[in-house]
């Protein structure tokens, strides 16, 4: 497993380098600068501002300077939120996004695996069709519709849960459910297909022939193998959750990194935008590596040396 991680490292650094480069130049390509206002600021002041934020000089040296700073772990200053560094903003907002994303991650995997298994063991019954209908519905309703519906239902009418904001654990429940719904749907479909396939295999017939109870066969023997496609989906899932949390944070007024990301685009706040993207991609790369490694542990037939 350690060997796998070491072998992958150079490629991962290369991917991260591409991400940094792409983001840097795409941000600079966008028309308009971070200090464009309705009223034109005097050229001398603008030059001072550009110098302060190290946005002066040839583009190439700006880029190498930025790259050196990022390698040192300094994501520079935000051009919009004056005198606050990107590191500082991320340190405040990322824990919020991770709490939301982490809970949604658990809900999506647990809910999806449960629903998929529920449907697969009841293959072609009304319960199966109902479960898969629910999953299809979950795939077809966007998060920003699920969110307001949950707010209306549990926040405004039943008044069980707070409608938004951040601070108490109760405020985490509705957003996390909203974020988890579409991915629980995807996982349940993966799970059902995979479990049905596994249940047709010889080793399951052997286990049944031995006289093992149905529950043991499904939950001890089949599930362990059938869960592999779900494990491969965990990497993309993490990426989807980070993207999805942008919308969920907007709907529920949560002060996470997603809202800052959207604002950084609107405000031409290049370093903040770059910071969010670099940190997101870095984390996802590490997470994917761990998933690949755990995959090798889960399924002994697969050797991830290649």
């Amino acid at each position: 497993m350690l060997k796998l991680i070491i072998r992958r490292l150079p490629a991962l650094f290369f991917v991260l380098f591409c991400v940094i480069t792409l983001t840097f130049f795409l941000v600079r390509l966008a028309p308009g600068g971070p200090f464009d206002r309705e009223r034109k600021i005097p050229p001398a002041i603008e030059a001072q501002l550009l110098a302060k934020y190290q946005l002066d000089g040839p583009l190439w040296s700006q880029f190498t300077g930025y790259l050196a700073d990022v390698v040192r772990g300094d994501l520079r200053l935000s051009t919009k939120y004056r005198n606050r560094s990107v590191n500082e903003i991320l340190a405040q907002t990322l824990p919020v996004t991770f709490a939301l994303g982490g809970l949604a991650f658990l809900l999506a995997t647990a809910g999806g695996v449960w629903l998929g298994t529920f449907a697969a063991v009841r293959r072609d019954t009304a319960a199966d069709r109902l479960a898969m209908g629910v999953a299809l519905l979950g795939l077809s309703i966007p998060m920003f519709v699920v969110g307001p519906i949950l707010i209306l239902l549990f926040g405004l009418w039943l008044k069980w849960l707070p409608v938004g904001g951040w601070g108490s654990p109760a405020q985490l429940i509705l957003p996390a459910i909203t974020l988890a719904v579409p991915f629980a749907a995807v996982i349940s479909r993966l799970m059902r297909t995979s479990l049905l396939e596994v249940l047709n295999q010889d080793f399951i017939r052997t286990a049944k022939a031995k006289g093992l109870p149905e529950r043991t066969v499904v939950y001890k023997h089949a599930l362990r193998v059938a869960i592999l496609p779900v494990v491969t989906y965990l990497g993309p899932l993490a990426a989807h959750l980070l993207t999805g949390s942008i919308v969920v944070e907007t709907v529920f007024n949560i002060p996470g990194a997603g809202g800052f990301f959207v604002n950084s685009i609107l405000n031409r706040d290049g370093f903040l935008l770059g910071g969010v993207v670099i940190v997101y991609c870095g984390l996802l790369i590490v997470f994917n590596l761990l998933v690949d490694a755990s995959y090798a542990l889960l399924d002994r037939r697969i050797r991830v040396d290649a």
Partner: protein
Amino acid sequence: MLEPGTASRILRRPTARICLGILIVVAAAASLGPELFPASYREPGPLQYAPPSWQHLFGTDLNGRDVLYRVLLGARISLIVGLAGAAVSLFLGSAYGLIAGYAGGKVDNAMMRLVDIMYSVPRLIFILIFINAFDGHVRDFAARLDWQWLVSYSRIVILIITLGLIEWLTMARIVRGQVLALKERSFIHAAQVLGQSHLKIITRHLLPNILPIIIVYLTLTVPAVILDESFLSFLGLGIQPPQASWGSLLAEGAQSINPLKIYWWLLFFPAATMSGTLLALNYLGDRLRDTLDPRR
């Protein structure tokens, strides 16, 4: 492979017929509907936030415009973006998958590794940065050439291209898998032995055989692209007013949820139309796939 009876076999199920009906109604209403409304329904008017009535079936919005009209207008743009984006992804994905699968070996490995990496990157975030970077330039470029249509539709064109650019991964994987299997069949070997060029083998022998699978995944890509577009528009970074898509309408609707007064029709009708359409597309796509590939 897609046999002649496939369509009728799928449509034997009542649910499938309902789904097809939904799609036909939405598509017809979106393409013909908006022009049928009188001007007073389309323009901002004094009748703000009127609840649904016989006059305004879906109610009116903040500016006194008819919500049904806006929903149909949004449907038009969402469907165009969905179909065209899916078409872009179809070309990219099948070309990529064909090349990777046909080349095999190291090329295939490297190409598929790239797909894996792209799967695990937050792609929509890059789309946002892309749109932000190129939209202004495309509009300047179009203005200089005096292409009026591109000036007003630059966002939509960019959305179609960029969304196509991120939704091709699944298509590429599926096509590659099919090609890998087909490549070992004797009719391909025969073509190779007869000295046909690679291009000819790919276009004449491989492509026709994977076409059904491509069509199935096209049905499943359309809803994915529509969902992506609505995501961007919801954040205010996709379709810009005065144009509307389902996503931008839903953004307005979501803002109207507050404890004082709930304008539910602003959220409900766009949501119901959009989800109904996506549900129908996903259902029919699933059924098509099940019929083609019963193993799945």
